[in-house]
């Protein structure tokens, strides 16, 4: 039995906050933006000018940044353990966490970059 502390609290916290944010917000986003919008039920809502107007507000950018980044970290943590449990590898075997959290970090940087450009 090993003792001592690890970096796990960071990843778990990001996972927990991300899971909560996703639980509250992702269903309504998919329903409105992914289904109702493309199906043409709300034609004017997704017009280009309107979208640009919505996103020009700093708060909506912060909101989208948090939503994207935290959702990715939520996935990274769960996927890391699912991979380990599914493939019978150790969850602490470094390539798995690096690939999972690394993807989430890349996604976070991309989101920050595009939001600053907008």
């Amino acid at each position, binding site marked *: 039995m090993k003792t001592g502390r690890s970096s796990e609290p960071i990843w778990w916290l990001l996972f*927990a906050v991300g*899971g*909560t944010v*996703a*639980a*509250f*917000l*992702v*269903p*309504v*986003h*998919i*329903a*409105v*933006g*992914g*289904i109702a*919008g*493309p*199906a*043409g039920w*709300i034609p*004017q*809502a*997704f017009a*280009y000018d309107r*979208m*640009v107007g*919505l*996103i020009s507000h700093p708060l909506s950018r912060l909101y*989208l940044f948090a*939503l*994207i980044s935290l*959702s*990715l970290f*939520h*996935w*990274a943590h*769960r*996927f890391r*353990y*699912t991979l380990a*449990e*599914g493939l*019978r590898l150790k969850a602490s075997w470094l390539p798995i966490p690096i690939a999972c959290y690394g993807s989430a970090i890349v*996604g976070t940087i*991309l*989101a920050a970059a*595009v*939001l600053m*450009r*907008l």
Partner: protein
Amino acid sequence: MSPYYRPVRFDWWRKRRAYTLFVVRELTSVFIAGYAIVLLLLLRRLAEGREAYEAYLQWLATPGMMAFHIVALAAAVFHSLTWFSLAPRAMAVRIGERRLQPRTILWANYAAWAVVSAIAAWMVLRA
């Protein structure tokens, strides 16, 4: 005289229904990440200008993306339901001397979920 070690099973998640549901619950995160990428693309196309954005909207309306979003919605709702039912177990909220009943926390979560969803939808839909 040595004890016998039973072999580790690779299909452990099929042994019990609860294990299968657990794996499904964990894999909902794949759809949540997938949707995060769709959102990220939306922002990039918006940044590229009107034409790129309109092409993006048409891409969303293709049958493949429609199907993805319908499955992703089911996955996301499953994530929300399981998340809210598990969250009260991490929190022990004490009011005065009494511990708040997990059921109360659960229903508070559902109510908050409804309110938050309504606000988010209103933000996008208001004319």
